[in-house]
């Protein structure tokens, strides 16, 4: 999938993450800020990059503001942001349907 426009998913509530995707041209540019960066920074980046790869996103600027979200939450927020950037708002292929 391509990132067509800037889109956001998620909140800054505890145990959530806010993911912003913007169109990019030079691969994936990823910024991670997290309240649990020391313990889970590595894992957060892995999960976000894996999810983008699974969705076929090759070029994007991605910002993750994490407040201690679990992996499942992170995946859902990344998927949602990517779908929104494509104008997809209904019948979303949740939960790793797109591989």
């Amino acid at each position, binding site marked *: 999938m391509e990132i067509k426009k800037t889109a956001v998913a998620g909140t800054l509530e505890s*145990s959530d993450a806010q993911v912003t995707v913007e169109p990019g041209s030079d691969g*994936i540019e990823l910024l991670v800020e997290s309240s*649990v960066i*020391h*313990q889970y920074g590595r894992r957060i980046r892995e999960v976000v990059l894996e999810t983008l790869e699974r969705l076929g996103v090759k070029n994007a600027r991605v910002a993750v503001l994490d407040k*201690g979200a679990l992996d499942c939450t992170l995946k859902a927020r990344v998927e949602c942001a990517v779908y929104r950037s494509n104008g997809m708002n209904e019948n979303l292929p949740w939960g790793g349907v797109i591989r």
Partner: protein
Amino acid sequence: MRNAVGREIPEEILRETGKQAFAGTYALDGYEYKKAAPRVRALCDPKREKLVGSIREALEKCGLKDGMTLSFHHHFREGDYVVNMVMEEVHRLGVKGITVCASSLGKANDAIVPYIEDGTITGIQSSGVRGRIGEAISAGRLQTLAIMRSHGGRVRAIETGEVHIDIAFIGAPTADEYGNLRANGGKSDCGVLSYAMADAEYADHVVAVTDCLVPFPNIPASISMVNVDYVCVVDAIGNPEKIATGAAKPTTDVRKLMMADYCTKFVMNTPYFKEGFSYQTGVGGASIASTISLGKIMEERGIHMGLGLGGITTPMCELLAKGLIRKLVDTQDFDMGAIESIKSNPNHVEISASEYANPFNKGAYVNKLDFVILASLEVDVDFNCNVVVGSDGVITGAQGGHPDTAAGAKCTIVLTPLLQGRIPAVCSSVTTVTTPGETVDVVITEYGIAINPKRQDLIECMKDVELPFCTIEELRDKAYAIAGEPDPVQFGDRAVGVIEARDGTVIDVVRQIREYEFQDRRGE
């Protein structure tokens, strides 16, 4: 060297501080020493007054100079004005190299951080620190090693002379002009002055700071005029709304209620739950809920608590008022209900921090505890607890009476949710050890209960009890299965603080925090 909880304590830390490495909770039982003593300036002439016009005048009369140690208590909790007021004046006088020896420091004292940065304050000794002071210490901005002591450990350090207080500032809700201090009445009621009592007895100079001067004699006094040099009246010593809150509403969080039920069921199935048992609990939602549910069982079975100890909250006072507790013995009041109770109920009694928890007196109340119900930021598979350093490596909590009560009680129960946000509360190895696992008997989470294998007696008496028992490793594995296994915090090399065990040995070292760096730069 590696100490008795397996922590590597650098030789240079031991050399620099003159301390020993922790050798076990009871290793220094029977230790003999001669108590320290303060210098006293006699007051024979009845014409000489103790009232001073300002904090500045008090500091000058006490001979404030570079390098002195100033002490404070934390009974005004998040509403404290005294520390900031005194340190601001010290700063104005241009004095440097002060050590602040407080029974605790919190967010209310954020204002002293600039004085750490400019060298006014170069030492901090406290039960713990929250807020910006903790961040400043963890960032390496304090010139010397911060020392974290339990409430009992602090009194021990003062009485042995390990720390010598030059000037003690004692915020007092009421005082008379000769320095009889009470915790009740006035505008900034805090219930008790337990943590300031050792300061009054062992500091060279003692300054009472009050916002309510009352007629002489202000008795019965928590702190007597015989130990007080000066009395300073100021506009306000604290913010009453933050000193004591209304009673916390009983929690409706089903997780906490479940943990409270587990805790009560565990307690009532131990041999210690019998007429006259003794008990201490904390202020967390689950602890308070367990006090309430235990109270119901006590009422049903006609069992009375002989001693209720510690920091006191309204639910304990309600049990006292119902006649279910014989004596409520108090070192700190957490809410208005507790403050009202100590004023009106003769069986609710103020004690000193030494009587409460000092391991080096001739016997403290904690030694008589059957149960203590505690919380913890982290507990590891060796049952070691961490209540001072956040999982992100930043100092953010206080030892309080945690290690003291754990060491004293026959049954030490830690109540904690399995995860705090994403952070596993049960882990392989705590960030910092503050309470040794040998003193922790049971860990209760909403996912299961682990008994320390060292307590085969407790395991035996629970064998027919319907509770979700498992091993501590199983608890950790459940936490990691949900949240993922956490990476260790990336610390710098420099030590910024020492965690003292209650006997004054080094149980762990706190290191400077480092900004997080991704180990490989893929995707950036």
